[in-house]
């Protein structure tokens, strides 16, 4: 048993625990059985495709603030909720949340919906480079990602109904509520069982999930490549901008030395400077729009892998139980039947959520790429206008001069 207990498991980090309990039902608080809930979900997901429903839940994350205590320093964000839903007491809520709170919410959601695709959170901290946690850019990037996370959750047909989400959005004192989570030892036991099953492996995975797995592997690698290329472009562009800044002054300086050439040289200096500014804007767009979107989907790929593992584990557990039962010669007991139903529900919910995710991914990445193309297009159009203005002024001067020279 102890050999199966992974030494690296850090029980402090909630996001590392793949916790699921067979006792917890798939949806908490719903009186309906899992399968009918599933049908409802399928229906709603389809409806979402057909009609653009008005958002009932609208969440924003802003106003980062720094908090200093004796033990630590951390950032909190204002989470503002506007809603028309009847299950909310008011139509507007305002709370302050820190990153840990978001982690809590996500792990609760994953726990209760092990085979739904829960949008990832931004990473705990940036690995490469010495980026301070309190650096302005870092905070802004994180704020946006947190906003994305909550938007995705509140748009999700099932996850948006989660009581944990409601607590997160409405409760002023979240800390005391967090302590009500299932006990430590229970979670350890469940984890051990989970690992045991995953080691055993799945006997007969349905074809569609094998295909899904393959796709996820490849998607993860491709999106990671696109991310790397984009990072390199940003690096190169940054160096280009730095050199451009040094390119305008010599023209200016030269202009100061000349008479007839003074004006054209000063104008060229101006053109170069304006183009340099435009390039900086273009760079900023890459960093704030394209790169975060790609990064987000890199994290999604990891989430998908985890979801697939959990689905496999659920199936493995069922198969193990059934085998054990068959060996004993028992008739199919209630327990095994429940597990079988669980497998079916998990598979269907994953299928539906999968196509929802695919569609959403396509929209998000298409938007990000379109936006980048547009930004690059505008950059060139602005630079074009800058140089065309110069050219026109020179041609006008040229024709004026010719008029002067005419007898």
């Amino acid at each position, binding site marked *: 048993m102890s050999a199966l207990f992974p030494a690296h498991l850090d029980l402090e980090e909630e996001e590392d625990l793949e916790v699921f309990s067979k006792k917890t039902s798939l949806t908490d608080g719903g009186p309906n059985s899992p399968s009918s809930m599933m049908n409802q979900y399928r229906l709603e997901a389809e409806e979402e495709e057909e009609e653009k429903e008005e958002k009932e839940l609208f969440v924003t994350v802003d106003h980062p603030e720094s908090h200093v205590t004796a033990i630590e320093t951390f950032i909190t964000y204002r989470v503002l909720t506007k809603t028309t839903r009847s299950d909310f007491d008011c139509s507007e809520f305002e709370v302050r949340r820190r990153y840990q709170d978001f982690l809590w919410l996500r792990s609760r959601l994953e726990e209760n919906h092990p085979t739904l695709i829960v949008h990832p959170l931004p990473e705990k901290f940036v690995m490469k480079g010495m980026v301070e946690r309190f650096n302005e850019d870092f905070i802004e990037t994180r704020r946006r990602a947190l906003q994305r996370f909550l938007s995705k959750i509140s748009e999700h047909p099932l996850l948006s109904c989660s009581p944990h989400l409601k607590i997160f959005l409405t409760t002023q004192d979240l800390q005391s509520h967090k302590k009500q989570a299932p006990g430590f030892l229970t979670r350890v036991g469940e984890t051990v069982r989970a690992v045991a099953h995953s080691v055993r492996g799945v006997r007969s995975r349905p074809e569609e999930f094998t295909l899904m797995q393959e*796709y996820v592997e*490849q*998607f993860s690698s*491709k*999106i990671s*490549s*696109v991310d790397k*290329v984009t990072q*390199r*472009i940003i690096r*190169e*562009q940054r*160096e*280009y901008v*730095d*050199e*451009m800044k*040094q*390119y305008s002054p*010599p*023209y200016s*300086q*030269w202009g100061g*030395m*000349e*008479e*007839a*050439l003074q004006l*054209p*040289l000063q104008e*060229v200096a101006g*053109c170069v400077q304006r*183009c340099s500014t435009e390039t900086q804007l273009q760079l900023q767009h890459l960093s704030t729009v394209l790169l975060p979107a790609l990064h987000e989907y890199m994290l999604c790929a990891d989430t998908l892998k985890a979801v697939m593992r959990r689905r496999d584990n659920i199936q493995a557990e069922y198969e193990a139980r059934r085998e054990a039962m068959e060996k004993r010669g028992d008739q199919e007991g209630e327990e095994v039947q429940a597990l079988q139903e669980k497998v079916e529900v998990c598979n269907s919910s994953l299928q539906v959520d999968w196509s929802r995710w695919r569609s959403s991914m*396509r929209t998000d*990445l*298409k938007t990000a*790429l*379109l936006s980048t*193309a*547009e930004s*690059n*297009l*505008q*950059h*060139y*159009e*602005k*630079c*074009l*206008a800058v*140089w*065309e*203005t*110069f*050219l*026109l002024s*020179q041609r006008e001067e040229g024709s004026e001069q010719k008029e002067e020279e005419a007898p």
Partner: protein
Amino acid sequence: MMADSGSNEEVAVIGNTDITSTESESNIINTMVERETALLRKMEINVAEAEKRTGKNTVNMQETYTVYLIEIRKAHKQSQRPAETVPGVGAPAAPDTLWRRYSDFELLRTFLLVTYPYIIIPPLPEKRAEFQWHKLSADNLDPDFVERRRVGLENFLLRVASHPVLSNDKIFFFFLTEEKGWREAVLETGFQDKADSRLKSLSAMFRVKNPDKRFTAMKQYSDELNTVISQLLRVRARVADRLYGVYKVHGNYGRVFSEWSAIEKEMGDGLQSAGHHMDTYAASIDDILEEEEHYADQLKEYLFYTDAVRSVCKKHDLIQYELEMAAQDLVSKKQQREELATGTVRVFSLKGMTSKLFGTESQEQRESRLAALEQSIQEGEEALKEKNTECQEFVQMAWEDIERFKEQKDKDLREALISYAIMQISMCKKGIQVWSNAKECFNKM
């Protein structure tokens, strides 16, 4: 072709920015050579080709060098283009050709420098590649470098041929017409002797008492111009380097989008075709930067011109100095005469001192000395007059050429800046094309 950017703010698009025919011609030829000299009325000059040769050099070692083909054609009047042949008459006559190597050009230029010290002699293209951004080869035998040098050499010949003074030079004429025996002819002129004195003028440290303000200002200007153009070329090369990096990395998108498209259904086509446009984008930088090299070459020509200007100013300093020396020499001799005649010693002289120490000389001795001095003074006055004339003529001719040079410089550099703007516009238009196409592809995703 302007893509619809979809923004509310109208980006000003001004008129026709396509290159006019004169501008396109000036892009090909480095210089606007308009001045018609007697020489250019007679002949058209081209440096048509470059070829590699191997041979033994002066120390009997094998070396590879490049030779350039100079073509001389009978000049056509404006209305007669070579393409418009009169029906019934055969094809236009073949040009006279000869081969020259770079060292021949160098010899020609040195000859001109020495023979016309008051003229700003056009520079040769650089011997070794400098100010290169790193992707360009610094190898002298690299075909692109050879090609740019060919253009530079043609430019040099056209500059000389269109110069009011230089175009009439016989040695220059022979350079264009006599392949064999030209080197001997140059050496026979004995310009080597003058070459030594020229070197002296360039390197000597002497102070002129009454410098001509115009020349001082000109020398200072040319030094400053040299500094600023050097800096500009250095930065430009670095900017080109970085721009190259940006474009080329986009090429990776091509490969990655293609791989990604293979696993996608609805997104596949859009991604794949967008990837192709990224490849196009990455490839486009090579031509863009190659064109910019022409601009750099135009700036380099004027960078090298500053050396020629400086050398004219230095020569003037030398002549001025020699003039001052001659004048000073005459003054001192006259004073000596005065002393000798009146017997007073005002100016320290060895003769005067020795006569004091060893007794005064005889009347005979004094008279002979006086006669010698008179002679010397007469010669000195002749020399001074000559030097004065030389100086005045030099100043006049030099200043005339300086004015001509200034006008030429203003015109050429303005054209260069315009052609640079045209290059930037072309680059922007290509960028607009690529990203419009990419946008369309992404839309299909």
